[in-house]
């Protein structure tokens, strides 16, 4: 086989290999969805973040507008501090509220932003004041059982 053919085959092989890597990175992986070159950081305090993880999406009206970039525990207030990095293309009013929601019944947790009516916009380093914690299933079941037990109690005393 001639040298030119050899070079051609190896060149094709390398191109195919790099093409496969690009396919994995762009189509299979999530590299295409994090094309946020410009972002600004906003923090939010939650009583309980449930199963929220770093890099979880931040959604508003169901559209991904950013990602959770850091989660830490504040031992002054005993709250969780979550840093959100939001896409610079989207501005939110200062009185925007953040809630930790779950996609589907058992899906991953994400942060939902609900825009307020303030005319001043959130900027880098601001804090979202209105927050709503994650719903912890165990607490919910506990409350349900407790209220059921209370419903049953008066009947017993009446007899």
């Amino acid at each position, binding site marked *: 086989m001639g040298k030119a053919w050899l*070079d051609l*085959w190896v060149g094709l*092989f390398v191109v195919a*290999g790099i093409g*496969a890597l690009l396919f*994995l990175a762009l189509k299979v992986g*999530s*590299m295409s969805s994090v094309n946020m070159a410009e972002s600004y950081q906003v923090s939010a305090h939650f009583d309980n973040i449930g199963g929220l993880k770093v890099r979880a999406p931040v959604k508003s009206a169901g559209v991904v507008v950013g990602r959770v970039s850091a989660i830490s525990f504040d031992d002054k207030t005993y709250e969780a501090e979550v840093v959100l990095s939001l896409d610079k293309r989207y501005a939110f009013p200062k009185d925007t509220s953040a809630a930790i929601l779950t996609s589907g019944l058992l899906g*991953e947790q994400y942060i939902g932003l609900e825009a307020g009516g303030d005319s001043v916009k959130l900027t880098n380093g601001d804090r979202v004041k209105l927050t709503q914690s994650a719903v912890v299933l165990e607490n919910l079941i506990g409350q349900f059982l407790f209220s059921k037990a209370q419903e049953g109690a008066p009947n017993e005393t009446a007899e």
Partner: protein
Amino acid sequence: MIAPLRQIAKLGRRTLDAVTRMGIAARFFLATLMRSGVSFRRFSLTIREIYFAGVLSLVIIMVSGLFVGMVLGLQGYETLVTYGSESALGVVVALALVRELGPVVAALLFASRAGSAITAEIGLMKATEQLAAMEMMAVDPVARVVAPRFWGGVISMPLLAALFSAVGIFGGYLVGVVLIGVDEGTFWSQMQDAVDFEEDILNGVIKSAVFGVAVTAIAVFEGYDALPTAEGVSRATTRTVVTSSLVILALDFVLTSFMFRGV
């Protein structure tokens, strides 16, 4: 010496031989690295070896990748449908391939397809005294014969593993979406949500690069170390496949435990 002691002495000699051999292998590996200047200065030598190790392995890698992906699609669907979550099929297929099966199975195939060929070639060159002839002509056989084969294999392996994973995901897509009828949108979007570029894809590439170094280093050493007889070459070829398969699986466990620490 009494019989039990002789047995123990035999065991001791075996151990010493094994350690010595590992030492020789390590020194040979270092020598290959030190003398690989030629394989980059005269890159056409390495290109030839990429052709033999990489391009000629393409068919077996891609066909196996397709079938592994299709099997994953079928089996994953069968399991997931009992929980009503067949939309996660893309995640199952992609993560299994990118994290584990792509690098590992591609490396196993590469060891038996290209590694054995490298060992047989170098071993036969030694048996027919071509290496000795080179040395007589003041041509360094390690620089001229061993290093290009080593680098050819090291360059080929990550590309082959990436192709294996990509073709495998396509196979899973064929079975899951085209044949069974899982929704195409959820198949891809759930996959993109779950597969992380650094965590999964980059770690897979690192794995395959490590396997490539291990397999080709074993292959060139076994060839160079082979007894210069027909039987010696055949034994060396067998050892290449057995040793590199075991090393791939052991290294895979070590690498995985460093990369995915259950976070």
